[in-house]
């Protein structure tokens, strides 16, 4: 008795299915990672008061001028946060992210009382550069839980012009 020849296309098909199974595992791992860093059910309704984003004078560590949504790249700028608007028992921080996702300025984490003296959060010019890099900068005030940020309770997006 002669066995029927094996269709080699079926071998290809099965190989692809093995690759797809591994790929599904990768995608599930991605979903798990997303859920870990964005845990569901963390919405508390808390709102941090971001007073505004102003031009910043690094020599005197003060802000000046009106609240703005965009700056020339030669300008330094900072966000001003009113920590007193938050409950005293929460742990929070504030960070600036540049267009590449790098942290370019931060305060905290700590309780609002601990951060009371740090209401101005400036953007730092990257080492080796004379001005801020252009792009959209995101300022966030984050609530911490278990040592990690779990909820954004204040957010501003600022454009640094080219």
């Amino acid at each position, binding site marked *: 008795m002669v066995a029927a020849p094996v269709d*080699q*296309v079926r*071998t*290809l*098909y099965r*190989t*692809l*299915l093995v*690759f*797809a199974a*591994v*790929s*599904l595992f*990768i*995608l599930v791992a*991605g979903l798990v*990672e*997303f859920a*870990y*860093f*964005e845990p569901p059910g963390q919405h508390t309704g808390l709102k941090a008061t971001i007073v505004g984003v102003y031009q910043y004078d690094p020599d005197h560590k003060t802000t000046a001028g009106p609240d703005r949504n965009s700056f020339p*790249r030669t300008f330094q700028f900072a966000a001003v946060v009113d920590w007193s608007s938050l409950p005293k028992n929460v742990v929070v921080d504030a*960070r600036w*992210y540049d*267009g590449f*996702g790098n942290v370019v300025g931060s305060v905290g984490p700590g309780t609002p009382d601990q951060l009371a003296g740090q209401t101005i959060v400036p953007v730092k010019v990257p080492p*080796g*550069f*004379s*001005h801020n*890099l*252009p*792009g*959209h900068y*995101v300022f*966030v005030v*984050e609530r911490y839980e278990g040592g990690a*940020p*779990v*909820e*954004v309770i204040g*957010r501003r*997006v600022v454009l640094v012009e*080219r």
Partner: protein
Amino acid sequence: MSALTTARRANPRARRPARYAIAIAIAVALSLVLVASSILNYIYLDTVAGRTSLYGLLAVALIAMGTFIGVRAAARDPAVRRRDFIRAAVLLGLAALFWLLLIDVFIFTDAAGPRVAAVCALACLPTTAFGLWVVRRIDRNEKEPWRLVLVAAAWGAVVATSLVIWAESLWQDIAIRTLVPGPGFDVSTAFSAGILEELAKGSAVVLLFLVMRNEFDDVVDGIVYGAAVGLGFNFMESVAYMTNLYAIFAPDGVGGYAAGFQWYARQVLGLFFGHATYTAFVGAGVGIARQLPTTRKKLIAIAAGFIVAIAAHFSWDAWINLFPIVQNNFLILEIHLRTLIMTGPFTAAVIALLLLGLHIESQALADQFRKEAALGSGAIMPDEVPILMSPWRRFRQRLRALGRGGLRAYVRLARLQTAQVDLAMERWHRERQEVDTPLEAEQELRSQVISLRKQLAA
């Protein structure tokens, strides 16, 4: 084979296959997405971007017309086919150029200037052309026509990029306003790139499969077309990143360095390791589906190809930060190792599918060469079988023809060999019941081979 089946296959005026309807539906859906994208850009983006985006509608119209004429040409009389193909190529070329111009004006010109954009595009052209040449060469038994490889690359560069601009911007906008910045945000962005870009690129491969079935034989062809789409996409993305980073870093005097690094990372190191690998998986899935017997298995194979492509793309974007590059003496080594470790396994998997596909194809063609020779039709002679089975021996035979009869003899022999391989391929598909063309098509190929043989002898 039943008499009914024979009669249906022998019908020279066969009904238009249902896959054409699917292809038209997909094309219409893609065009609507492109038009919607242009209109939304016009409404929501700033004046310059919106205006140029509206002009993009013209590029969409040119692509639609070019594709329609190109597809229609395939089914036409050879006398008018060439003219239609040229018209389609011109329209697609105009659309590509128009879109390139748009991208320059839309995104970069304002910051980096048209000269920088042109230099970046020119820098990426030779490497992308080399990539396409290599990808086409890997199909050693039956090379795909340049026109289709270039159409695939053009769709990757022009259509796929246009499809994802709006969707990715929207996803990014929502993510920035809702997610906690950090790893979760990065994963979200990676899902956006993996899903949206692979769907946009893969749709071109699926359309080629549905419309140009005669030129889409198996997994090898699928990998070739998929990689070509990926290379086209990579070209446009490289130009975008190079010009954008140049504009960002130029005021600090390192714009050229930033653009040059992007060129190396995307056009040299990542030429085959990035988009070409990802979309080759979509092509592999579609190519395998081409040869499966049931609709269920076909759909599973196509879905599997998309899943692997999305996962490969996702893993690079999501986990690239796991391999941070430190500014030290080993910087160059680290960059290469990162690409090798993160994308290397996927590229190796594509190569495994390719080698297996080539092996299967070679065996099948050898079998069909022998069967055709045994038939005694005169299309393939018994002493030609060992030569036709080896691409290297075919090449040596052409070289001998070149020495004896010059370039004319070389070209004629090349045409004869191509027609003989086409005939064997047609026989293979018919034996596996994978063709919907009438039996006359095979006889026509046989007659064509015999005619080419006579021309060569003359």
